[in-house]
């Protein structure tokens, strides 16, 4: 139980990630790089610096981060607005030592990702226990990709079950099947993303092949026929938002037991987060 995982958010009062009122634990680190991803902070497994210039109060009032940075990666004012004196992080120089975040009074700079042990996670999840009991709510593990944290994930789910907490997992399906099996045995619901059945486009838009995802899902259906499965597909312009794809997916799911399908609409709420992480948002070109 001394082990820990990097979690980037524990989201309470979550209403759209399984039955009832839930708490979602987001693991950091994902094997895919979906271009539309609305949680870019979930992708890298390490802790990293995120920065929202809107919250920065500028060098005149503060400037603490500049003093704290040992690599000279923080400048003030400059290309965005020369007058405001706000911090600018040169990501090429930054090594994510996180010392700037520790001194930022306005939380404009903060750390994405926190090491949490199983008992810390369960303490956080148990806080809303009374809310779960009134409607089948509970814990949802998400990410990133929870399967990427293999044994920790399975231990967490086993411990949650022991506390009689309802469990759900959101997964992209790209992971070791044995881990998936171990996790599934402690799950009440699984939310499994199938983004595309077109192998080529899948690679192009997510950075990985869909072979493993498809075979994992087929095996899961075979080995856990009683498990409640919700298959979710985000329909993304130019990628999979078309009739052939929809037909292919519904054909693939037809006749499988305990499978429900949910379509997710594309949104760009994550765009600001790319900026906060000093990355580029690659979706603009895909909107029609």
């Amino acid at each position, binding site marked *: 139980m001394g082990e820990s995982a990097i979690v980037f958010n524990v*989201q*309470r*009062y*979550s*209403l*759209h*990630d399984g039955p*009832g*009122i839930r708490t*979602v634990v987001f693991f950091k680190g994902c094997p895919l790089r979906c271009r539309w991803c609305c949680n870019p902070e979930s992708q890298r497994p390490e802790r990293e610096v995120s920065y929202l210039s809107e919250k920065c*109060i500028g060098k005149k*009032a*503060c400037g*603490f981060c500049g003093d704290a940075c040992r690599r000279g990666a923080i400048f003030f004012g400059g290309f965005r607005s020369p007058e405001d004196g706000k911090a600018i992080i040169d990501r090429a120089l930054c090594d994510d030592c996180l010392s700037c975040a520790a001194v930022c*009074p*306005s*939380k404009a700079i903060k750390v994405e990702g926190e090491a949490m042990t199983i008992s810390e996670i369960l303490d956080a999840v148990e*806080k*809303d226990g*009374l*809310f779960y*009991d*009134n*409607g089948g*709510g509970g814990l949802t593990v998400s990410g990133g990709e929870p399967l990427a944290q293999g044994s920790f994930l399975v231990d967490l789910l086993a411990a949650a079950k022991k506390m009689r907490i309802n469990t759900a997992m959101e997964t992209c399906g790209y992971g070791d099947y044995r881990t998936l099996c171990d996790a599934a045995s402690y799950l009440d619901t699984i939310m499994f993303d199938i983004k595309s059945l077109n192998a080529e486009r899948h690679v192009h838009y997510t950075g990985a092949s869909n072979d493993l995802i498809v075979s994992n899902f087929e095996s899961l259906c075979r080995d856990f026929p009683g498990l409640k499965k919700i298959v979710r597909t985000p329909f993304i312009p130019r990628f999979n938002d078309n009739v052939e794809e929809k037909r292919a997916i519904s054909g693939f799911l037809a006749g499988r037991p305990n499978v429900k399908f949910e379509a*997710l*609409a*594309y*949104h760009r*709420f994550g765009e600001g987060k790319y900026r906060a992480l000093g990355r580029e948002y690659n979706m603009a070109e895909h909107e029609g």
Partner: protein
Amino acid sequence: MSNVPVLSPQEARIADEAALETVPIAGRTRRILEKIREGRPRIDVERGYYFTKSFQRTDGEPLILRWSKALLHYAENASVYVDDDQLIVGRCGKPGRYGILYPELDGNTLREAIVNLPSREVSPFDISDDDARLIVTEIASYWEGRTFHEDLAKSLAPETRKLTYNDDESLSSRFIVNETASFRSSIQWVHDYEIVLEKGFIGIRMDAEERVSRLDEFSPVDNTEKKPFLQAVINVCDAIILWAARHADEAERLFAFETDEIRRSELRRIAETCRRVPANPARNFYEAVQSQWFTQVFSRVEQKTGTVISNGRMDQYLYPYYARDKAAGILDDDEAQELLECVWVSMAQFVDLYLSSAGGAFNEGYAHWEAVTIGGQTRDGNDATNDLTYVFLRSKREFPLNYPDLAARVNARSPKRYLYEVAETIKDGAGFPKLINDEEVVPLLLSKGARFDEAYDYSVSGCAECRMPNRDTYTSPNAYINFAAALEMTVYNGKMLYYGDEALGLETGEFEDFKSFGEFFDAFLRQQKNFLKHAFIQQHEIIRLRAAHFASPLGSALHRLCTESCTDLHQPKIEGGIDLGYFEYMGYGTVIDSLAAMKRVVFEEKKVTLAKLKEAMLHNYEGYEAIRQLMLNAPSYGNDDPYADEIGKILDMEAQKFTSKYSMELGVHMDLRYVPFTSHVPFGRVVSATPNGRKAYFPLSDGSSATQGSDVNGPTAVLLSNFRTKNYDRREHAARLLNVKLSPSCVRGEDGTEKLIQFIRTWRDLRLWHIQFNVLNRETLLEAQKAPERYRNLLVRIAGYSAYFTELSPDLQSDIIARTQHESF
């Protein structure tokens, strides 16, 4: 997920109306509503005038007798009205929205008030020149020197007085230890309306006459106490019967001129009904509703009840009439709903006029809360919901009006359909109903000595209080205490920046010299205790003085303990009663957050020194933004963070310990309460920058809600913080008002309703007293600030009540926008 916002039904309706450019007018009550929303409220002088005239003639007589004669004088002379379209009649002022005068309270401020009322920012009133002259020459001149307000000010010792009033002629409030007894003669109250429906005032009068005949003609007590009491009851019965009969006359007069056949038959029925009730027992739903409404309005004439007289458990006492009429086939739900809505639009026309700016600021948006209670339990502890309960809820969804203030009682046995319809009504977005939790209220009432049947039968009263008709006997309004001011006094060694160099509180030492958080916290607790001390001294004087200033013959006639003992309701001690009072903790979140921020940033992390923090606050954080950000981002209340919540629990405990020790000296259960109305705004206007990063003179946190915008862990954490700061091992606590703002997307669809029910059930299981919801998009509120004329109908939940957003002051509007809106994720 699209970027188009999900609208609440209320928002969608307003958007539709804007698109059509016209408001759809359907039905009589809509027509009445449209008419009354035109124009600002006006002052009607008749109540103040006839009351004064009568009092001039009865000097020296027993107070309750004088009061009853004044009511009789009013009933004989005041104008009566039968409004177009109305089915239910009875009003105590001119057509349209009106406020009336209670010069016996704070008539000393009348002269100044009539100049200021039309132009004041908060809750303005219009007044004609003739009426203004009459007020000065006929009303104010009599009351100056005789009002409760002046007497109270005279009786307060200087140390208490300086925390209460400014040293000016109108005795304006300091908003520190604020008394509320001079702008209302009773706290929120509920009559036993069943007495009227079952006996009629003829029956009540007969009982009193019979009692008179049995008095001992040689007994001094019978002669000087019981006889005037019983005569006053007889007078007030005569008054209300006469007043109703004059309405019958008026309806007959109009009938003679009316050509429309349908209206003629309505007028005939009005005339017949007003001859029948409230004199006699009600025979059907129509008569019951009319009888209750007459009683309510006459109660308004009698006295200024805080937040206006409440309606009690309407779905219970009206049910037998409703059920009987329905079974007989003479009433359907649409007709029942229309009659109730006739009452709601009448309520909406009565506007609670506060002369003083303190009173006006307490109740912004012309607020009054004639709470209507629905649901809950029967006297024997079973589920009380019935078909009529659902008519009230339907009316609330369909009729866009902020009256009455609908309060739904919830308990562990509330049926699913009830919770479902309550949740659907909340989703409409207008903030109704507020919820009151039987699981918290009933045990507390029991702990004060109530029987089970009385406790199960409580009514919601006013904003969030609960009353047991025929058992509650304490009517004295109580102190609102600004504990953020106590915090400021701990910073400035007994002074406040707003009041300059005047020493107001204790000298607890220079801010810079505190060596530890414990030392500072102790100093604050001493200031807190000092405020409580003066609040209780103030209360002692209020209780003593009220008995000589106020009487309530009608209220007493409708209270079994009063009639049994022949004691006026406003006397401090009534045989067999339970006295439930309260005092208000203002600025709870502000104080907790300030203490938590100091503990963390100053004493633990040592990022800022006390000297530097003080310097920053003296400059209102201007030029000290980094310090402000540090303080703002420290642990705060409302996030289920034990760091802050443990401080809150201590504040709550210390206040309860104080009242536990001293309230019985006042003869009252003086309970700790967190219900601000809108007063967290004016209380904030005297408090300079606070250590939680709050800027000077901004609103304080409201009720037991978190500081505006600081509750970032979602609504479950808000509930849990509330839970964890309560001291369940004590009984000296009453209502905690809790506002939760949800975006419509949280409650969308059937699934959203289900999850709202789950949330409500958990609130119930946590034994929190009260909760109310605003289901609105923030953008809508911003838009309404920009284009008020389009959003005249936009109702928002404020504090125990809802009001039209565009009628609120800019400060309060901003405050509501700043409350954190919880999104689901």
